[in-house]
């Protein structure tokens, strides 16, 4: 590795610490009135040095600055995906929408028998499983909700008709008397416990 010259080092440090891109003039005068030509030579040498590195020295409109190498730009903004299990409250709302769509929030609440926080519908829309599907033409014109193709996709359904009917649910024991089912749910809460940060439905847990 060739050692950088004094001027090269000075320019490197100056541009690194600068809050804004600097013109050759500005660099030369900052470093005590250097010849523009020698600054240009040093800038070219620096630029060549950085070409293979993770940071590049670039000129934009006559002004120089360091920036991340274009092929590494994705490192500046990273997306972290976090998988979370849908809370029980949200699952109930989703099921009601799926079985009754299109359905308004008031209708969801009257079916659930519990108030539904705005956040629950937001979560379902964020998940991409529910979408607003217009308004019901009744007083107040409430927004009505329906499921999306992504919903069918995620739950492995060809269509909503594939959802098991009430009779099938009963046969599967899923319509057991509410107190027993509730008790079981309260005792085990399996969905909630393996998802420590699903705090969005504490108030809905009845």
């Amino acid at each position, binding site marked *: 590795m060739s050692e950088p010259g004094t001027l090269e080092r000075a320019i490197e440090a100056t541009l690194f610490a600068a*809050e804004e891109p600097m013109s050759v003039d500005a660099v030369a005068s900052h470093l005590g009135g250097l010849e523009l030509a020698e600054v240009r030579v040093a800038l070219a040498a620096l630029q060549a040095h950085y070409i293979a590195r993770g940071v590049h020295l670039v000129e934009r409109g006559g002004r120089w600055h360091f920036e991340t190498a274009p092929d590494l730009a994705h490192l500046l903004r*990273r*997306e972290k995906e976090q998988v979370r299990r849908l809370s029980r409250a949200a699952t*109930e709302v989703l*099921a009601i929408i799926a079985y009754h769509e299109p359905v308004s929030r008031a209708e969801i609440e009257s079916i659930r028998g519990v108030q539904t926080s705005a956040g629950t519908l937001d979560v379902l829309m964020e998940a991409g499983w529910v979408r607003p599907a217009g308004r019901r033409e009744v007083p107040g014109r409430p927004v009505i909700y329906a499921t999306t193709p992504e919903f069918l996709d995620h739950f492995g359904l060809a269509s909503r008709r594939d959802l098991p009917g009430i009779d099938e649910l009963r046969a599967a024991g*899923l319509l057991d008397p*509410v107190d027993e*089912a509730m008790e079981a749910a309260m005792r085990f809460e399996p969905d909630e416990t393996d998802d420590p940060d699903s705090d969005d439905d504490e108030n809905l847990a009845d």
Partner: protein
Amino acid sequence: MSAAEEPFMLGLPDAGADEAVLVQGAKPGEEALYLALDGWEGPLDLLLDLARRQKVDLRQISILALVDQYLTYIERAGALRLELAADYLVMAAWLAYLKSALLLPKDEQEDPSPEELALRLQLRLQRLGAMREAAARLMARDRIGRDVFLRGSPEGLRTDRKTLWRSDMFALIQAYGQVKARTAPRIYHVANRPVMTLDSALERVSAMLGVTLEWMEIRDFLPPHASPELKRSALASSFVAALELAKRGRAELEQEGAFAPLRIRRLKDSAAVSVGA
């Protein structure tokens, strides 16, 4: 040992001053500077400064010489009518005591010995001196924003958190089942159990008593073909009915012993036995 108590921890708040203040009216120069006691952060600070002027290792400092210098400064300050903070005077008194003790013959000394007190003072001066030195070296390091600089305009790193929601078919239909089960209208069935009410027992027993004046066992009042459940109910009701009739003076009860048959008969003088009379 009130006189021997070291006046090291003094109630003087630090002045926070970086440089000594020149005494007004005094001649500029070292003398004046040295008499401006505002420049020191307390007597220990002044002592350290004096000690350093001896230009020897603090470990070999002459405490007696140091005491003399301190006392001299305090006296000169007094002569110049400078306001002296109380702790400088307390220190002066203590040092004067220490000096006299150091000069006294050994056998007249108390505990702790003046040598110990002098050593303690020396140790404290060493520690303060060490920290002052360390502070200076620390401040002289390459400091960010003064000697070294960080990147002027870093792009910044951003992490966008995205939640991937997960659920499954079973959870979905189970949740729906629970909603339906929870909110389904509930119908209560009350089973019709075979009982004989008190009213009907009263009616039955009075009617049967009207037939004869003979003793009758209470069992004979029970409906003959009743189910075991109804019989138990009828027995209980008929017993209560018999007690009620006895209370009204229309019948009398008799039982020869515990668990013996309970017998009942109409009282002769109550010709008309009728419920509710």
